[in-house]
Structures are given as C-alpha cells and as structure tokens.
C-alpha cells in the first residue's frame, strides 16, 4: 500500500513539474523571438572584433572584411526577427485535449508497463535485514534488534548467574560458532547436550566446533559427532555436508560429490548448507578434473569462513585468530604433526603475520630436529611460502 502511495506521489510530482509551464498563463510579450538569439551572437562577434583590433591581433583590413561579413549576418537576422515579430504569433492557443492526453498517457503507460515487468509488493532484502531474519529463530523475539555480540554478552551474563539453564546454552552455542569461538562453542554444546539431551543439531554443532578446533579438518572427533547426528536425524544438512567434506578430504572425491549433490537436490535441506555444498562441488568438482586428486591441501577452512561470512570482518578476524591460537596451543602440547605445523605456518603467513609464521617454522624445525624427512618437509614448505627457515638454509 505504501508502495502505491509513494509511486503515485512520484508520478504526481513529476507530472506537476512537467505541466507547470502549460498551466501558467502565457506571456508572449516577455518571450524573445527566435532570431533575437542570433542577434546576440553576432553583436558579440562584432565586439570581439573590436577588442582584437585594439589588441593588434588582427590588422585593419582583416577587421573590416570580417565586420562586413558579420554585419551582413546581423542584418539578415534583424530582418528575420522583424518579420517574425510582425507575423501573428500562435502563442497561447495550446491545444487543451492534446495536453490532457499527454498528461493521461504518462501514468497510464507507466502503470501498464510496470504491471508487466515489475514485482510490486516484493520487499527489498538488504543483507543486513536478511541476517537478522536468519538469527531470529534462535534468539528471543525481544532481542532481535541487538547484534550478535551484544546477544552473546547478555546470554553469558545470564548463564553466569544461572549455569544450569540448558536452553540458554542451547541458544548460545550456535552464536559462539558464528563468532568462531570454537572451544566456547564446544563447551556450550556439550552442556546443552548434557542438560537437554542430544539432538541432531546439537551433535552436528558440536561436530562443527571440533572441525573448527582442528583448524579446518573433519577430524575423528568431529566425524563421530556428525555420524551421531545423522543417526539421530538422517536429514541433518550440516552433518551431511561435513561428512561429504570428510569423504573428500579422505580422497573419496566422488563420494563427496555424490553426497553434496543429493544434499542440494533435497528440498528439505537448509539453504545455507545447500550453498556450502554448491561451493564444495565447485571446488572439488572443478579442480578434481584439472588437478591430480589430493593435491589440494585444505585451505584456511573455507567452509567455515563461508559459513560465518555473514559476520563482520572484525568478528571473522577474531574467529580466525582464535582458531589459529588453538592450533598453536595444540602443537605445543603435541608437536609431532607435520600437517598441523604446515597449517599453522600457512595460516600465519596468509594473515600477513610473518614473524609468527617464522617463529612457527623455527619451533617446527626444533620439534623435528631428529627426523630428517619431516625436517626437510618443513624447510621446503617454508621456502614455498617465501619464509626464511631461521638460518638453516640461507
């Protein structure tokens, strides 16, 4: 309705502008005649000629000749202007019907064409609005206008006072996932499961938390959660997506593609995981043809990034930082993990944190001081990223 009012208003205002001169009484005497405009130009040319002559830019003979020429044009224009003035002007005899037809034409044509091509009644859906909509189901109605961070803070305050509120943990856990606070998310999901019992979304959420904790790989922990979730609800989109990803990472690219395809074809599946599956198809489907299988080392978990793309850049940065810190801590405890070190080094260098990256290289080399093959792998890997390996090579 508002749309119709605004559209009508727009039409009326513009038509008002257009027909304003036709509605005013005409004042023929005030308007100059066609050839008066020419006269202005020629008079100006004559003035210009005089200044040129004064300044010595042209000589007298040239000036005379030009003056004669301009003078002829001036006379001709004056005659024409006089003739015009003598002739009866047709001013003021505006054809009313013609103007009325014109005034009716514009809105009619606009409405007819718009009815054919437009989608009246369809709302704008800016990203910000759509994000809110998606958050709505998992937050209380009254809180819908607050942003995620504030929500989390409120929920945390609430839970600090009432740590036994299982529903609170259940609401908070997915938000932690969004913010990339993987270990908080794991904790929250575990509490929610303990207090409210297991459901597929909780199990698969926990799986995703493990996935993030591992720095972007579907490890054993994550996998078992996803499998548990699928056992609870075979339609759980998130688990289906990640299990396919696990298959792809394990080398079973065809199985993964199959899994994603069925996920996409399933109209009960959640749209965001369909989108993630599309992305997976594109990455593994496209590259599987172009590249040897297995050559695509896991990136800085694109899937997770995709998943939380809706967060602000700052949040995302925080999420990535968190994940890396966790990975870093894990490697301190358990340093015999070449892939882990490589992931850490790559992550630091992708973020432009060169000193940290080189520090990680150093620590990795220390860890593998006795293992020549792994030592070599790290050196090579660092060189590929353009990192110095702390004096061991150059």
């Amino acid at each position, binding site marked *: 309705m508002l749309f119709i009012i605004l559209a009508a208003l727009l039409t009326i205002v513009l038509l008002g502008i257009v027909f304003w*001169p036709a509605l005013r009484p005409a004042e023929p*005497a005030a308007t*100059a005649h066609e050839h008066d*405009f020419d006269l*202005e130009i020629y008079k100006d040319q004559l003035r210009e000629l005089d200044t040129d002559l004064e300044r010595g*830019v042209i000589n007298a003979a040239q000036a005379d000749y030009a003056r004669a020429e301009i003078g002829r044009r001036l006379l001709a224009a004056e005659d024409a202007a006089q003739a015009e003035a003598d002739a009866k002007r047709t001013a003021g005899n505006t054809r009313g019907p013609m103007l009325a037809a014109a005034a009716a034409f514009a*809105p009619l044509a606009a409405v007819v064409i718009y009815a054919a*091509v437009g989608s009246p009644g369809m709302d704008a859906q800016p*990203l910000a609005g759509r994000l809110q909509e998606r958050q709505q189901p998992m937050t209380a109605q009254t809180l819908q206008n607050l942003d995620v961070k504030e929500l989390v803070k409120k929920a945390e305050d609430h839970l600090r006072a009432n740590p036994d509120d299982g529903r609170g943990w259940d609401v908070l856990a997915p938000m932690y996932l969004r913010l990339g606070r993987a270990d908080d998310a794991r904790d929250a999901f575990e509490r929610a499961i303990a207090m409210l019992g297991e459901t597929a979304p909780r199990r698969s959420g926990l799986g995703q938390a493990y996935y993030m904790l591992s720095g972007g790989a579907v490890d054993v922990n994550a996998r078992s959660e996803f499998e548990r979730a699928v056992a609870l609800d075979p339609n759980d989109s998130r688990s289906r997506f990640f299990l396919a990803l696990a298959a792809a990472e394990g080398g079973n690219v065809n199985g993964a593609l199959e899994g994603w395809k069925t996920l996409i074809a399933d109209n009960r599946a959640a749209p965001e995981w369909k989108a993630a599956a599309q992305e997976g198809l594109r990455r593994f489907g496209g590259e599987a043809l172009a590249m040897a299988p297995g050559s695509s080392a896991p990136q800085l978990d694109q899937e997770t990034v995709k998943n939380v793309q*809706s967060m602000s850049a700052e949040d995302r940065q925080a999420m990535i930082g968190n994940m890396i810190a966790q990975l870093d801590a894990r490697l301190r405890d358990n340093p015999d993990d070449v892939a882990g070190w490589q992931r850490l080094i790559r992550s630091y260098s992708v973020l432009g944190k060169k000193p940290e990256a080189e520090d990680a290289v150093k620590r990795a080399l220390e860890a593998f001081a006795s293992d020549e093959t792994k030592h070599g792998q790290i050196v090579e890997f660092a060189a590929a990223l353009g990192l110095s390996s702390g004096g061991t090579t150059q």
Partner: protein
Amino acid sequence: MIVELGHYALVLALALSVLQTVVPFVGARTGDTRQMAMAPNLAFAVFAAIALSFGVLTWGYVASDFSILNVWENSNSQQPLLFKFTGVWGNHEGSMMLWILILSLFGALVAFFGSNLPPSLRAMVISVQGLIATAFTGFILFTSNPFTRLSPAPLEGQDLNPILQDVGLAIHPPLLYLGYVGFSVCFAFAIAALVEGRIDAAWARWVRPWTLTAWIFLTAGIAMGSYWAYYELGWGGWWFWDPVENASFMPWLAGTALLHSALVMEKREALKVWTILLAILAFSLSLLGTFLVRSGVLTSVHAFASDPTRGVVILAILVFFIGGALILFALRSSTLSNGGLFHPISREGALLLNNLILTTAAATVFVGTLYPLAIEALTGEKISVGAPYFDATFAPLMIPLLLAVPFGPLLAWKRGDLFGAAQRLYVFAGIAILAGLVTLYLATGAPVLAAIGVTIGFWLIVGAFAEVWQKSGLPKAGVRTAMARLSGLPRSVWGTAFAHAGLGVITLGIVSVSAFQEEHVLRMAPGDTTDLSGFSVLFEGMEPRQGPNYTENVATFQVSRDGKQIATINPAKRIYTARRMPTTEAGIHTRGFSQIYIALGDPVEGSNQIVVRLWWKPDVTLIWFGPILMVIGGLFSLSDRRLRIGAPVPSARRRQVLAAAE
C-alpha cells in the same frame, strides 16, 4: 519496496521520455510556446526519474540486496565499499543505466543552460534527446532490466569480475560515457537544425560548448582507460587497438574534427553541411561503440557481456538513429545555403585539412575494426586485424597532420600567407630539429625514426605556443606590454595552445617508449639480481597476504642504482576468493616521467623460481600527461567568455509593435 520504487521510476522515466519526444516537437513545429516551454521541465523530470532509479540500484549494491538478480550476479557482501559502488556499472545492465543517466543529465543541462537558445531550437534539441532516451530506456526495461528480482534472496553474491575491481574502473567508464553521450547533444542540435532548416554561424556557437564538453570527457576517459589497461592487465602495453578501444577512439577522432570544423562555421559560416554531417557521425560512432561493446560481436579484453538478442536490439536502435539521421541529412542538406569562400591556404583551409585527415583516420580505424566482422559474415573465414594494420595505416596519416598543426593557428582567415607563417615558425622548427638531433646524439644508436619522432613532438610543443608568443609581441614589445597582451588574449587561444602542446607531449611519450623501452623476461629465485637499463633489480622473495576479498602472493623487488637503493616494487598475483579467479597486479615505480614496470608470471614447478617480466619504460607517463594538457586546453576554451552569451531582451521598439498587434 524501495527496489520496486526504483523500478517504477525507471518505467515512469520511459513514459516521460515519450512525452519529452512528442510534446516539444509538436510545440516547435506549430510554434506553440506553451508546449515548447514544457521541454526543459520534461528534461528535468526524466532526469529526476532516472536518477532516482539509478540511486536505488546503487543502494541495492551497497546494501548487498541479493534479491536483485543484477546485484547478486555482480557483487558480493565482502567487497570493499568502493567496489560496491563501481560494481553498479561493472556489468551490462548497470552500465546501460549509467548510459541513460548521463544522457538524461545532458538533457537536463541543455534545458538548464539553454536560455540563450531560440525556444524552438531548444525544444527540438530536447525532443531529439527524448527520442534517444526513449529508445535506450525501453531497451533496458525490456531486454536488460537491472531490477529483475530473485526470491528468495541468495545468501552471498557472485562477486564483481576481479579484473574490474580497480579504482581505474571507478572513473573510467563514467568519463567515457560522459564523452560518448555528450555527443548526443551535438547530434540533437544537428537533427534540430535539419528539421528546422535553419543553420548559421550562431548555431555553431551554440553547439561549441557541448562539443567541447563531450570532447574533454572523452579525451580524459580514453586516457584513463589506456592507463587502466596499462597497469591492470599487466601486459605493459598502453594501447592495443582492441575493438573496444577503437570504439572510443573513433568518436574522439570525429569529435575532434567536429570541434575544428564548427570553428570555421562559427567564424565564416562555411563548411556548414560538413559540420552537420560530422555532428551526426560523432554520435553515430558513439552508438556504434556502445553496440560493439554491448553485443559482444567482437572479441575483446573489455567485453564483459555478450548476448545476441541484446545485440540485435541495439543494432536496430543503431540503424534507426544513424540511418534516420543520414536520410534526413540527405533530404535536407541541399536546402542549406552555401557559406563563405576561402582560399585553400588559409585558416579555413588548415582546419579543413585537419578534418580531412581526422575523418580519413577514423575511417581507417573503422575499416580495421569491422573488417573481421565483414569477412566472417561473408566468407566464414576468421581473421583478426591487429596493431600492425593500424601502425601501417593510421600512423602515416597522422604524420602530415602533426607536421601541419603548428601552422593552423598562424594562418589568417579567408586568405592566409603560408610563407609568412613559415617565417614566423622557423625559430620553433629550429628548436624542434635541434631537440631531435640531441636525442639522436644522446641515445647513441637511436633509430633515425625515433629522432624524427622526437623532432615532431617538440615541433608540436613549441609550435603550439607560437601563436601566443607572436601575439605577445615579444621580444620587441616590453615584458609589461607582453604580459598585458597575454592576459587579454581570449582563453580559447590558450586552449588551442595547450591542446596542441598536449598532442606533442603524447607524441614524445609514444616515440620514447616505442624506441627506447627495455624488456626482460626471465626466471628469478629469491636473492637473484638482474640489470634493467642501468638499474639493478633484486628479487627478495614472495609473501602471501590476505586482502578483503582476495588472497595474494606479493613479491618484493629492490631497485638500486650504483649501489644506492631507490625503490621497492611489489607486484602480486591475486586470487579472488568468490570466483577463484587469478589476476596479475603489476608493480610500477615512477621515476621522473619514466617507469619501471614489473609483472609476475607463474612459479616454475619444482623450484623456487618464478617467471618475471620487467620493463624500463622511458617517458611513458607523457602518454597520459598529454591528454591531461589537452583536457586543460579544453577547459580553457570552455571557460571562454564568448561561449556564455545570455538570452536576448526584446528591444523596446518591437515590444511596442507587439503591444499594438494585440
């Protein structure tokens, strides 16, 4: 709702454009002052509606409203804000919206500044503009509607083509379009003159500021596009004779010719028919440019949309306007009276020579651009016409033009004295030849052609100021008199001087780069050093970096000379995450007018080496400084007092006559 309001505004703009075509036309033909008086308001209203619509589309991009198909296809919520804005015209639909926005802007400007035009001429011009707006707004609505909706809105958009994610793109197409579409005003003036059957020296004066405006924007747009291609494509070239470049260059050549012939018409009322034809041609070539780019009939580095149906519709619009204008021209031009006579050696003669050469050059570019199309249509054989063709046809035509340019402004109108002009120029010719010889000497082993080129460049630059010098009376007159005279010179004289000097500067840049540039392609490992034209370039290594919507591998090169470090250059290879599309970011260091240009190739498998392409490009920036001078010249001319003549006040005598008649 806001989106649909924008959509409705576009539809309303179409309806109002139809009125803008019909009402002022009927008014002008019947002498109805009220209907003529509606013309400016119609132009304002159409502009307001299109601007609203364009604003809404821009809002869609900025707010990442992916329920708009066009926004979803061409942007991404992660894009930096600037590229959300520029993404609006980084695609077919959006760029057409920009096209009509600028068209309606020019319509509104004609309406606004048109109080010095005879009402019927103004009404007719606005009517022709309305016809063009009707055609293109209809084209947008029915074949490439940017407001097509998508429900439900997808989560994430597909991203703007990374090659277009660049500041250069932010300004380049709008400038180019301001130029292209600016010629629509000249076109409208020409059609109006033909319909009204009245064309005289005053007409030329009225058209001149519009031609100048369009020309200034087109010059700036082409130069900007050239620089964009230079640093963004990473090929080190500044002009590729690519169909899309040609598409913008042809209207420029025709527009430049128009600028000069309108001068003859204004002063001497000669070359009238020719000037009208040029005004039609300049805009026709602009339309052709739009067609070539939009239809994708020609393969090009720039064509980002190709769709045969759209191509057919644009072709139909093209045929209608160009064909219609030429038919009207053929019917009416014979009724136009002949103008003043002139001796072949005179200012008019020189300007005519300029026109002949420029239009011939435009014709050779035209043939080269469309020949492959014609051959494919006729024989099915696929061929391409590249730079060698243009070097062999365009360049020889330009040399006599460049040599003749300094003579033009020194020749008198009607009957000039070539010998006298030559006498006044010999000092400047001497300077130019000296500069050429010095170049030959300094760059030992420099090709003779390069020396000739440098001579021509200097000849243009010093020759450009010959008129100014001569008019100052120096050295005979005292400095004070000279200063007084110079400050009293019409601004258009300065405009001519700057524009012609700009041409010389471009020539110098082109000659210098073609003759003296140095290029190396080699593999480098971190720590390697190579020599480039007396510089020593050290490759330090590669480092990955994370951008807002891409990841990149940035290389660091240290440039030094005689052991002194002078610059760090960081070319990069980027991958844009959304489309997983790689691009090359060239690293450029500017030194004086020259540049060191480094582009990265692929890493060599099984080693830490990478293929690197390095250029030393002497004086390359002159190629873009020249156009800047030309634009400055154009602005000088545009600000000339003589172009701003107010509306007449009816004389008292005639007012009495009128009063008596009523």
